[in-house]
């Protein structure tokens, strides 16, 4: 199952390290990563691959929720299909 991890917020040190570390610890493979400043906000978008579907997703979301609070960011994990179905015919 492929999912998109989106991190939006004020830029600071260690965001990528923190997020990718959580993904690594949960056995999630990062397929693609892009980072940009959009409307003055640090925006990182990762395409990741969950080998073990639902259980891994749940624990990753919990860990990322903690990171979200700690770093003052907004982090979303959503299955890729939501974006492809909305924006591609």
């Amino acid at each position, binding site marked *: 199952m492929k*999912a*998109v991890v*989106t991190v*939006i917020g004020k830029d600071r040190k260690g965001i990528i390290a923190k997020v990718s570390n959580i993904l690594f610890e949960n056995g999630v493979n990062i397929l*693609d990563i*892009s980072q*940009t400043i*959009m409307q003055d906000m640090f*925006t990182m*978008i990762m*395409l990741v691959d969950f080998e073990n579907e*639902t259980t891994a*997703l*749940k624990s990753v*979301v919990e860990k990322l929720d903690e990171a979200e609070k700690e770093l003052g960011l*907004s982090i*979303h*994990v*959503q*299955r*890729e*299909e*939501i*974006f*492809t*179905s*909305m*924006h*591609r015919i």
Partner: protein
Amino acid sequence: MINPFEIIETIKMIDEENLDIRTITMGISLKSCAGPDIETVCRKVYDKITSYAKDLVKTGEDIEAQFGIPIIHKRISVTPISTLADALDEPTVEKCVMIAKTLDRAAKTTGVNFIGGYSALVHKDYTRGERVLIESIPQALAATDLVCSSVNVGSTRAGINMDAVKQMGGIIKEAASLTADTQGFACAKLVVFCNAVEDNPFMAGAFLGEGEGECVINVGVSGPGVVKCALESVKGADFGVVAETIKKTAFKITRMGQLVAMEASKRLGVPFGIVDLSLAPTPAVGDSVAYILEEMGLEKCGTHGTTAALALLNDAVKKGGVMASGYVGGLSGAFIPVSEDAGMIAAAKEGALSLEKLEAMTCVCSVGLDMIVIPGDTSAETISAIIADEAAIGMVNTKTTAVRIIPAPGAKEGDVVEFGGLLGTGPVMPVKKYSSAEFINRGGRIPAPLQSLKN
């Protein structure tokens, strides 16, 4: 990889513009539960609903978590209960209320938010069971929390059953008085339809129609806030641009509904029925259909031009949505429930929005006079006459119309009634002081219009 701007757009729609899936509604046929003995019927109904819908809520929550799209309600719609009442040995009000309580218990066991289908279709005439079921509606709604009821009193093909229209005025008054302690809350769970649809996922009017299968998943999307925000970016542009913008937005919203519907259908092993394209508002600021109309350039919803604005909105939503889903159905239009829409509440409080204007608006959108609080001393005949007017609009225009009106006991014009949750806040709107009693008391049937003769 998907374009980052598109990803951010989707996230913004969900986080800031209140995009959500309003409901996943599982339709369950209860035809197999019919029988002469009430105890057996209740047991079969409970067992069937709790077995078919046992994973509905969990599946909804899983989809919500994995796709990051809020799914506000999970609901169940069932075969009109009048079908069960008709099969009973001796249908009585008490027996019908027992079935209502069974539905309520089954809904609570499965964890859904509402169960719809305590219904009867009497657009031409009543059967014995239908008559008893309608009589039992006030007690059934007062005795349950999650059961929703609807009655179809007219259709383009059959005309309007004016005996049923007359009866429903009294039923609504009785439902209000039985729930006087909650300001007539039972009436918020009761809809009177003309041209009711069989696959509607929205409450209070959802039921599983005669032509439907054993079990089906229907999905209703919601996104007035997204449409409003999209229109903010085309301020001052002409109506061609406005319509295009709404179409594109509706397409995206509906695609999300289609995705969720397919996913739910796959996980539950239940056929996918339809996606309902309706724009359904909530009382949350930024989730209002009225604000879309105001964004088009009206100072207040309800002023001159509102009907035209709504007609454009309703049409563009359909045009955009229809390509996004394999099967579109249900009510599919913009809803204008007064108490559930922050902009409508404000407009009604300030006197910009009247019952007459709302009636005109229902000619060009789904569904009808919805969630409107009227003074508690309004007569049953006046309520019946309001229903008759609305049914006539539906009958002649070959569209669904409905009346969900609350004569809140003790409430007077200018008061405000709080229902809470999705049902919101209702300013009490004035009705005409002149009597319609003699008209309503004629009874009989208004013949089907010329429009019905299409063969």
